[in-house]
């Protein structure tokens, strides 16, 4: 289900407080408790800064709590709200995306597979932003392609195609590295 801009626009606190249902609040809390890692990962992948990502998640939930009740897939809706908040934060704080910013959600390689992890990091760093976002949403945030499409506001086939191309590119990059 696609949401209009008005549905995810912040503000209207009083109206939202009067109209939002307690059921929605409890649902948002449950979603946060279950998806907190994925939500933070999504925000961190966009902002490249943990503190800014936390602000984005918090801001998104405050907006959700203040907003009107929504229908449809709440999980996708919450992720979309967090993504929008993260994009706002990035614009507002002029956080530069580039370098390691896109992979800030990944911990530094360590342990016995450090070298293999490093290769994966390098390969992912070479992905176009759109493909990387598809990988993040599906693999690390744990959304279905349908949910990811809803979060991105793109057709499902587009998101699935980006993911497919990302895997192909990663595979080829890793093959080159191991030759």
């Amino acid at each position, binding site marked *: 289900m696609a949401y209009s801009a008005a549905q995810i626009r912040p503000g209207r606190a009083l109206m939202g407080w009067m109209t939002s249902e307690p059921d929605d*609040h409890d649902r948002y809390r449950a979603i946060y408790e279950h998806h907190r890692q994925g939500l*933070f990962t999504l925000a961190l992948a966009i902002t490249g800064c943990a503190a800014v990502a936390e602000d984005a*998640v918090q801001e998104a939930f*405050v907006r959700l709590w203040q907003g009107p009740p929504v229908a449809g897939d709440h999980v996708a809706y919450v992720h979309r709200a967090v993504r929008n908040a993260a994009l706002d934060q990035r614009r507002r704080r002029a956080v530069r995306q580039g370098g390691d910013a896109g992979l800030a959600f*990944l911990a530094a390689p360590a342990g016995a597979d450090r070298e293999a992890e490093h290769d994966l990091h390098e390969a992912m760093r070479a992905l176009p932003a759109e493909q990387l976002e598809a*990988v993040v949403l599906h693999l690390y945030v744990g959304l279905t392609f349908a949910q990811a499409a809803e979060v991105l506001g793109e057709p499902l086939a587009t998101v699935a195609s980006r993911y497919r191309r990302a895997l192909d590119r990663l595979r080829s990059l*890793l093959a080159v590295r191991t030759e």
Partner: protein
Amino acid sequence: MITMDDADLERRLRALRLVPPAATLDVCLARAWWRRRAVPPAVAASIAVLGGVMAWGLATTSRVAPQPPAEAIVHARTIQHEVEVRPFSDAVRSEVHTTMVRDPQLGLTTTITQQVVGVRFDPATVH
């Protein structure tokens, strides 16, 4: 050259460790949540306090009923007016109260008696 299928590649990608959110995020959200939720209870508490005060006021007011006859009230006010200009005396305060209640002519009720209790005066001036 190592080849891998999608499932293997996905497994390797999923195995990468993620940066966890800080515990402060939970705290911030909890604070935001309670700030959000704090308004209705505060309003409810205010309403409850106001309601309690109003209920107390009504209950207090209702204790004066039944109202005394109109002529008795007038008479009591007259007495009160008279004693206010007399010399004070703490020692006779209760006596004055008792005297007034026993007065058959006035037919004073408890309410009327309470209006003059606390006014300290010489009982000799009442009659």
